[in-house]
């Protein structure tokens, strides 16, 4: 059966094969961008993590993978997903 390794998992967003991570390379990097983006947003204005996710989801300049990650995070909405500085 293929070459799926012991640790192989599927990306929780797109279903692509990953080497043990919950996200594929693209979505992992995008998730980091979303977290870094929040730091920049909070420097610019007062905004909560939830409102930030809502604003990013609605923004027409938001990238497709960012939308997918935001959608995933909004659906999960557990403490685990939210950055420590919330």
């Amino acid at each position: 059966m293929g070459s799926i390794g012991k640790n192989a998992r599927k990306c929780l967003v797109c279903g692509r094969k990953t080497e043990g991570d919950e996200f594929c390379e693209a979505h992992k990097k995008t998730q980091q961008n979303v977290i870094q983006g929040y730091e920049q947003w909070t420097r610019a204005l007062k905004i909560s993590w939830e409102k930030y996710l809502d604003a990013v989801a609605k923004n027409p300049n938001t990238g497709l993978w960012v939308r997918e990650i935001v959608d995933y995070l909004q659906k999960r909405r557990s403490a685990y997903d939210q950055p420590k500085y919330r």
Partner: protein
Amino acid sequence: MEEKDSHTLIIAEKPDAALRIAQALDDNGKPKKTVKKKVPYFEAKRANAKIVVVPALGHLYTITQESGERDHYPVFNFKWAPRHMAERGAKQIEVWINTISELDKNANGFVNACDYDIEGSLIGYMILKYACDNRENDAKRMKYSTLTKKELQRAYQDLMPHLDFPLVTAGRTRHEVDWLYGINLSRALTLAAKNWSKKYVILSTGRVQGPTLRFLVDREKEIRSYVPIPFWTIKASIELNGTSYEVQFEKERIETEAEADKIVEACNGKMGEVKDIEFKEFRQMPPVPFDISGLQSESYRLFGFIPSRTLGIAERLYLATLISYPRTSSQKLPPVINYHEIFASLSQDKTYKLLISELATKGELKPNEGEKEDPAHPAIYPTGALPEKPLEAGEQKIFDLVVRRFVAVFGEPALKQTVKITLNINGYTFYLHGRRVLKEGWLKCYAPYVKSDEVVLPSIEKGQKILFKEVAREDRFTSPPPRYNPSSLLKLMEDQAIGTKATRAEIIDTLYNRNYVQDERMLVTDLGFYVTDILEKYCGKIVSVDLTRELEERMEKIEVGKEERENVLDDAISRLKPILEEFKSREKEIGEELSEAIRRARMQEITVGSCPICRTGKLLILRSRKTRKQFIGCSNYFNKICKTGFPLPQKALVKPLRKSCPRCQWPMVLVKIYGRRRPWNLCFNPDCPARQEKEKRKERWEA
């Protein structure tokens, strides 16, 4: 003394060019046309000597695998063969080659008169070598940049004593290296996918295609993972003599909301003061003459023509003797083309007469040349000939653009004046900008392709008090970098020195044909993404710009005799071998990934958007197994969750539009009925207000 019936055989690149050459060389300008098995050739009489001009059909010979199976790689054995022996659907080539071979029998002189560039030199060489039985060493070369009678006669008078062998070798090597890369890598990809999924889909990549697609993929990744960041700008207007003028804040962007609010608070509705007035005059030089990429980007900017379309039109204009040879990278116009004669001929057209009269006051005609040079051809210029019959709309646009640009490069510099007024208000600075043209110069010649947006300000004095009528903050967000379009991608390929002026547009077309990109915005498909990712993962060198550029430089050295064909070929093979071995050893996993990519790409092709009914499924364009009718259905149907379905027009090509209906926000599809020219956008929501309104209108009309 010449043998009876003996003749000089001239090889031209295309039938139109053959006719022009024959007309120019025939003493009476009326060569005899013969068509043998659909192959035309022309007989001209020149000072009692007989000349036969026969056209090629582009390349008549191509590279093919010398021996071995077709579904196998690596392949390093190759030979040049007639195209009909290597390609399906090239039967006419056999007849063409046989006709040329027959005309060769009584020939006692040979001339390659194909376009003077790598491809033209190679086309002629291959015909002389294979169809004319090794005449390549006896043949002469005709060099010209326009198909005008005068230039063709001069070129025939001053024939080069032998073929341009360095150019031929460079062309040969380029084709051979590209074939080695293309055939091996494309076969590796296709076979890996086929062996895994047992389904056959052509996948391709190449020496230039791989890095070009990578540019697009890298940019697409940036766009897809882009998080917009908020910033603020200040929109302000002042009132002067009853007229409102927009002024610019000292900072282009403000990083925090609080600061933006502070500025608005301090300035809105308050009085400011003129602190400084600064006038500047500057000369704007005329544009440089068109090389092919310059023409392609300008035509995309002005008319939206993709590069391959512009090139095709420019070639037709060249064959109609209206413009010079377009595949040039030169931005120089040497005096030998005779500027005065071209202007005199163009002046016979009323529109251009007026333009050209602008130059009459100029003593010496000197073009504003660019830096780029091409040893083979000058920049693109109009020959002076005017269209004998009405041109098709696209041709007319490009012809007019070439003429006006040619006139503009000889124009006087434009003289412009700018005024910058500095305004102070409560410690903040704003600027009011005015600009006007003092002397039009070349701008007049290049209209309507250049516009000067003037802002003329009323008289204003230092210390004057001014009301800031409206100052407001604008909430903005940073944007991702723009996607490449065919024109900007072509420019990037040129800047990165990959591909040649003759092949770049073709490579961009291949990306579309392979379904790696879609739309004019060059949206990378999932397939394009996966193929690039897989190549990068398993054979990164293939998509490396550096490798391609390095090979490009070495092939350019062959053109000037500083590099050997054999060295470049050996090097290409020794680089390919380990890559292909590695690829083969991991064929199974690559095949699995590629098959998944193909499956996803197919899914992307039929996915219309999210299901507005169940909100978890995706709407797909499907075909009923029972009735073979196409319809839109929800992917959750198979999980027995959602039975949503919508009918679609039959006998029509239906594609996802990736846009929402402006009235109901449902996803839309593009429908093209076979046999009809225009496709249309369809909202399939039966309850869409737009659809209901349309039906009501119809009912009223019928009543």
